[in-house]
């Protein structure tokens, strides 16, 4: 969602790393993206080769409406469960 139409493997990986400090592997990112696509929550398309990638192509992903709905549901469930915990967990 944050990356709009620039959401490809490397960018997603770096976004996860920047926000959660988790150094996930690129294959884990693509495996998850592929699974979500198989479930009909994402769509993908292939971009042009670029010199910064040694002439290789990028595969971009974006949320489908079903994916946005699923994300919204998950977000609501999480915020509901975490309600009132900010003080106890010292979360900012």
């Amino acid at each position: 969602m944050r990356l709009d139409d620039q959401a490809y493997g490397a960018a997603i990986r770096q976004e996860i790393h920047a926000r959660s400090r988790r150094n996930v592997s690129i294959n884990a990112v693509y495996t998850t993206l592929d699974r979500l696509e198989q479930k009909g929550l994402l769509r993908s398309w292939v971009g042009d080769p670029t010199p910064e990638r040694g002439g290789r192509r990028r595969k971009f992903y974006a949320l489908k409406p079903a994916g946005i709905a699923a994300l919204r549901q998950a977000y609501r469930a999480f915020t509901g469960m975490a309600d009132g915990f900010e003080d106890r967990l010292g979360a900012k």
Partner: protein
Amino acid sequence: MKAAPELPRLATWLLGRRLPDAWRDFVAGDLDEEFRTRRVASRLGAHAWLWSQVVRCLIAPPPVSSAAPADVRPRGDSMIRTILADVRYAVRALAHAPAFSLAVIAVLALGIGANAATFSLINAVLLKPLPFDEPDRLVRLYHIPPQVTFPGMKTFALSPANFYDWQARATTFDRMAIYQARQFTLTGRDRAQTIIAMGVGAGTFDLVRARPALGRWFRDDEDAPGTRVAIISDRFWRTYFGGAPDVLGKPVMLDDDAYAVVGVMPPAFSIQAWGLSSRDIWVPLGYTPEDRLVRGNHNAQVVARLKPGVSVETAQAELEGIARQLEVEYPADNEGWGATIIPLYELIVQDVRTSLITLLAAVSLVLLIACANVGNLLFSRALARRKEIAIRSALGAGRRRVFQQLLVEALMLSCVGGAVGLLLAHLTLGATSALIANQIPRVDEIALDGRVLGFAFVVSLVAGVLAGTMPAIRAGRTDLTDALKEGGRSDASVGLRTRRILIVCEVALSLVLLMGAGVLARSLLALRGVDVGFDPDHVLTVRTALPASRYSTAARSTAFYDGVLARVRALPGVQSAGAVDDLPFEGGSVQYMVVDGKPELSTREQPTVQVRKITPGYLETMRIPVVRGRDLAATDNDVVIVSESAARLLWGEVDPIGHTATLPLQSRERTLTVIGVVRDIRDDGLAEDVGAHVYEYSRERDWRGMAIALRTSVPPATLTTAVERAIHEIDPNQPVERIQPMTALVDQTIVSQRFSAMLLSLFAAVALLLASVGIYSVLSNVVRGRRREIGIRTALGARTTDVLRLVVIEGMAPTIVGIAIGGVAAIACARVLETMVFGVSASDPLTLAAVAAVLAMVSLLASLLPALRAARLDPLQTLRGD
């Protein structure tokens, strides 16, 4: 515009091989892009990051997904992902239980390490081919001697004439070579010493295909009398010549003659297990034309190389045919003398093969017991985690997944245990090799090579599977409802049958080991108690060899030994002294004895006796009692004293005193008079029958190698220096070959039995310890789990003895079953040990009863400790605590 990729070529190649086509571009492109960015900040950091990503891609690449409809659920994680996840989880879980992990690793390290060490022994001795070219074609050739003359002997050395005839007539061999040990006095360094060199006939090194590291082989023309050249071993080169690079041409002083060094053999040639290669010096055999014609004196060793494609059986048949030809051509010397071939490898290992395999079997039993023990520990741990396992199952983990997780934990522990065990084996290898060097051949070739490492790895996996399978299966069958609710069945009652079965296995296997150790120990005691016919206690023996260069006449060697004996007898603490050519258990001359008045029979029928040359004082020193006639006196000459067996063999019921005989191999002219009959002695081995001995004495003796025996009133070892001094007062340059108490010589004959008994006892002790710890830990768990029940019973009036009986029966019941099964197994395995025991049956019922009793006692003790703890439980506290 297409720019060049910046990923290292290796990374690109690996990803190209591993990634599916559908993902290759995207994954490699993403890695390339981020790698370039990171490299700006830090090259090293960028490379480290890249390779961690590459490795993870290699382990678990993105899956190849078919164009499946969106509503089909994906298949789930691959097996390798789940195993990796289990490995990570197991590392965390085991790190949180360090005491448990260390205990399991220690037990497995012991079992796997012992197996690895034993296998490395078997690998070096039995599995590795001999370090020669085409070693399976190297064979030793022997005579089969006439059985009437040499009852029970299957092999005998060759005579030179027979060898040359075999060599000329045989067609199934590439080459044959003859060799014979030669004794020299080595001088030229600090002190003179006796050395056994090997005299080798022409073509010996060529046959074995052993190239020297420096210099050359002997030339064929150098195999002639008087040739003074030598080839030396690598070890001798380093110790005697200090590893000098210009050693070729330098002299080695043997019997005061200079032998020029023409070659140095490489270290790999010096195999201690074979007489030819174990020496430090080789010299040409140098037979004279007369020596080559000697047919009746069998004292030479022969090695041969079969032609390619020729089997041992074919060559054997040919040699037998040649031996029969020689019987017809030379009946006086060859009648009854057959031929046999033994592969060199077989000769080296045949004596130890059974012992080594028995050892491996024993150490495998220890590992099985360790696995049963670990199985119990893993089971207890799995039970303690029942709730956690139940939650995982409730969240969707199937039985297979739970089983896999616990098995992975067990395998991790066993692999770590195996690594530690290998380290232990490596650290103890040096000391172990030194300990067994005298009993096991090829000990110098023991190493932890690829095969041993592979064996240790496989054993670790097997141990992990054996120990972990039952607990993993049992945990997978956890009753979810019971595990999750409070007040459900306690740990103690769950899986009790499984743990009882493990105890039964441990006890049964321990009994088999204890029985083996017991019969070997009794066998050793029986051997020690054998009456050898003489008294070895308080007897010191000294062996010397006189060099031919300084003792070329009988008069000189007689004067030497008489002088030494006179001085030694005068030493304080010496009660008597005498000399003999070969002490008991050192082997010795076997000859025909022809009784005067009886015809000389053919070689096939002529009885033989063990002939020993002695001086007055020897029989008295060894306390070999004279039963008829008298002992030697210094004034005697050309006399013999015969043993009771020899008297019966040669004279039957007739009293031999006063009769005469000859020893034709020494001299047909010299007549020997019998003056006494002595008791028989054993000198072939403690388990062997007594032999027929003849002790001969002449006033003038052309002896060059003699052993002096002295009976002492003080500990024999305290006289070592004084005896050496006495010898050097007669001849300062005379080396003393060996000084040792006679008891040490006797002990050497049972060194392998002692070794086997010691090792098996060690294994049995370890097994007993493991079994008792196993019983103790299971019962402790049972008591802990049944606290409430015990508290209730006690509150309702149960006495201390009732509680004790409850717990002890819980421990003793599987013990009794284990003893019964183990007893049957021990009797079934007894046949294996039958060849290794003496004086006791391998299925001896007394030993079986004794070890069963020991096992029962130890189990009782292991059961009593938790039982006493249970009996001391305060019922009020126990019930309140719930």
